[in-house]
C-alpha cells in the first residue's frame, strides 16, 4: 500500500540520518585515537609522566628541532595532567559544597520573594559565555590577586623557576567553580523540590527537625541528581579551554604542593587550554599528533566520567530513588 511504503521510506530516511550522525561521531573518536597513536607509541606510558618542560617540548615540535637526545615526539604531559586534575577536582569539590548548600537554601529556607528573584538569576548566570568569565578573571581578579595576595617575598621564593603574576591556579579554580555552580544549583534544587512532600511531612511528624529531615530524606532522594550534576559540571570543567587559557597562567608548569600556600599562586595549564593555545601548529605533523593525543586523553576522561556517574547511581535505584 502506498501509505505503508511512504512510511517505510520516511523511516529509512530518518534512520539513515541517524546512522550518518553515528558514523560521524564514531569517525571522530576513531580519528582522534588514530592520529594520536603516533605520539603514544613513541613515548609509551611515560607520556603521562613528568620529564622536563612541556613548553620547551612543544616549542621544539613547532620548530621541528628535536631536543638533544630525544626523538621528535618526545613529550611528557604530566604538568598538564596535573594542572587539569588539580583545577578540576578543586573546582568541582568547591562547587559541590557551595551548590548543595545554596540549593538547600533556595528550596527550603529562602522566603518566597527571594526564591522567585533568585531562580532566573541562577539560570542567567548559567548562560554567561566562558569568555566573559575569562575577561573578568584576567582583567579584574588576577591583578587584584597579584597586588594583594602575592607578596614580593613569595614571588622571590619561586622566582628562579617561574613568575607569579596573578594568573594562576587559585584564580582558575575559583572562576571555574563560579562557572559551574549555577548549573549544579539549578539541577540540585530541581531535584530537592521534587522530593515527595509526604516523605518530608512524615519525617517532620516523627519529631525530626527540618535540617535533619533535609539531610536524611531530601538529600538522599536527591542523590542521583547530585551525582548527575557533578558529572555534568566535571565534564564542563574538563572541557573548558578558553577561560582557562586566559586565566590559568599559560605556562605548562606543575604547581608544587610542597611550596605551601604558594602552590595556589603558581601558574598551570590544563589540557584543553593547551590544545587551544597550540592550535596553529596543527599543520606540523609531529605537533598535530601530540595534540590529538591530548584530545584522546580528554575523550577518554569524558567517557570514564560518564560511566562513573552511571555506576554511582545504580545502588540507589534499589531503594526506590530514581534519577
Amino acid at each position, binding site marked *: 500500500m502506498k501509505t505503508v511504503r511512504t512510511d517505510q521510506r520516511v523511516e529509512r530516511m530518518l534512520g539513515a540520518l541517524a546512522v550518518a550522525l553515528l558514523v560521524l561521531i564514531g569517525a571522530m573518536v576513531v580519528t582522534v585515537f588514530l592520529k594520536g597513536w603516533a605520539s603514544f607509541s613513541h613515548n609509551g606510558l611515560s607520556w603521562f609522566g613528568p620529564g622536563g618542560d612541556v613548553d620547551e617540548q612543544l616549542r621544539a615540535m613547532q620548530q621541528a628541532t628535536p631536543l638533544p637526545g630525544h626523538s621528535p615526539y618526545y613529550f611528557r604531559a604530566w604538568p598538564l595532567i596535573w594542572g587539569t586534575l588539580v583545577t578540576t577536582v578543586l573546582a568541582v569539590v568547591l562547587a559541590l559544597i557551595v551548590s548543595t548548600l545554596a540549593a538547600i537554601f533556595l528550596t527550603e529556607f529562602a522566603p518566597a520573594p527571594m526564591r522567585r528573584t533568585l531562580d532566573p538569576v541562577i539560570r542567567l548566570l548559567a548562560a554567561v559565555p566562558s569568555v566573559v568569565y575569562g575577561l573578568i578573571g584576567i582583567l579584574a581578579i588576577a591583578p587584584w590577586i597579584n597586588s594583594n595576595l602575592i607578596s614580593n617575598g613569595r614571588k622571590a621564593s619561586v622566582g628562579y623557576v617561574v613568575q607569579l603574576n596573578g594568573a594562576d591556579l587559585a584564580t582558575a579554580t575559583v572562576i571555574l567553580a563560579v562557572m559551574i555552580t549555577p548549573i549544579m544549583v539549578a539541577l540540585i534544587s530541581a531535584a530537592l523540590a521534587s522530593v*515527595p512532600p*509526604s*516523605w518530608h*511531612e*512524615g*519525617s*517532620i*511528624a*516523627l*519529631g*525530626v*527537625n527540618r535540617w*535533619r529531615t533535609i539531610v*536524611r*530524606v531530601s538529600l*538522599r*532522594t536527591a542523590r542521583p541528581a547530585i551525582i548527575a550534576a557533578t558529572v555534568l559540571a566535571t565534564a564542563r570543567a574538563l572541557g573548558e579551554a578558553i577561560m582557562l587559557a586566559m586565566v590559568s597562567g599559560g605556562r605548562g608548569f606543575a604547581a608544587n604542593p610542597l611550596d605551601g600556600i604558594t602552590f595556589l599562586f603558581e601558574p598551570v595549564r590544563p589540557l584543553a587550554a593547551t590544545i587551544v593555545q597550540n592550535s596553529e601548529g596543527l599543520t606540523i605533523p609531529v605537533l598535530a599528533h601530540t595534540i590529538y593525543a591530548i584530545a584522546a586523553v580528554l575523550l577518554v576522561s569524558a567517557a570514564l566520567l560518564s560511566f562513573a556517574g552511571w555506576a554511582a547511581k545504580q545502588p540507589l535505584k*534499589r*531503594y*526506590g*530513588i530514581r534519577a
Partner: protein
Amino acid sequence: MDPMMPPPVRRIVVEREPYVAPPTGQNGDGGTATLAPAPGAASAPRLRRPATNVRERMRVESVWLAYGDRWVVRDVSLPVRQGEVLALIGASGSGKTTLLRSLNRLTEVTAGAARAGRITLDGEEIHELEVNQLRRRVSMVFQQPNPFPMSILDNVAYALAEHPKHGRRRRRRTPELEATAADALRRAGLYDEVADDLNRPALRLSGGQQQRLCIARALAAQPEVLLLDEPCSALDPISTATIEELIVGLRESVAVVIVTHNLQQAQRVADHVAFMHLGELVEYGSSEQIFERPTMQRTRDYISGAFG
C-alpha cells in the same frame, strides 16, 4: 420571612448541650461494651473487648483552629485517654483532620495557621513543650503510606537514630537499636513477615505492609499517643482488617485517636466517638451511645447516611 432580609448566619441547629455523659449499660449490663449489637443499630461486628485501665492522656479545651481567616475548628473540647480508641467521624470539611493534626502541632507547618484554646499532654500545655519532643511523644500515621526510600530497619529506627542523645546521634546499627526496631515491628504485626531480611528496601513492600511499617515507625519511639489519619482508606479489606486488629491491640499501651470516614470501621474499633460537623463538635460519647442512641438529630442523620 421578609425577602429583603439577609439569610441568617447560624450554621447548626442546636437542641441541647453537645456533651453527653457516658451512658449506663443497656439491658442492665453495666459494662461499656457488649458483644451483641443492640437491635436497630448498624450490624458491624465489634472487635473490641472491654477497655481496662483507662487514664486520661491529653485534653483538648475550647480549641479554635484557623487557616488564614477561616476558622476550621470551632470551640472543641475532648479528652484523649490511654486504654481506649477515640474515633473522630464526620463529613469532609468537618475539621476532624485539622483537629488531629493540631494534637502534635503539625498545623504549625502551614503558613497562616492560627489557634486559640488549650491542648494539654499529661497536664502540660503542648505549645510550651519543645515541638520535636512533643512529636516523639505524640506520633502520627498518615493516610497514604509514606515509608522513606531506605531499608525497613532504617525506616523503623529513623526516629530513634535522629534522637539527639547527650549531643551524639545513634546512627550506627547498634544492637539496641535493632532490638527496639524489632519490638516495634512486632507490635505493628509486621515482624514475622519481614524478619528474614530487614535490609530490604521498604518501598518493595505491599501497601498494607507499608502502612504497618509506618505504624511500627511511629511506635518505635515509644509514643504516649498515636494519631491515625484515615490509615486504611488506601488499603484493601484484608490489610484493613489486619490494621484494625492491630489498633485495638495497641490501645492498652498507647492512647489512639483515629480519624475515619468509614462508619463501620469506627464501630469496629472505637471506644469513644466524636462526631464533628463544619468545625463544631456535635456530639461526643461512647461508641454504643453514638451509634445506637444518638441524641442529636444531625448525628442521627449522618449515621443513617442522610448526608456525608
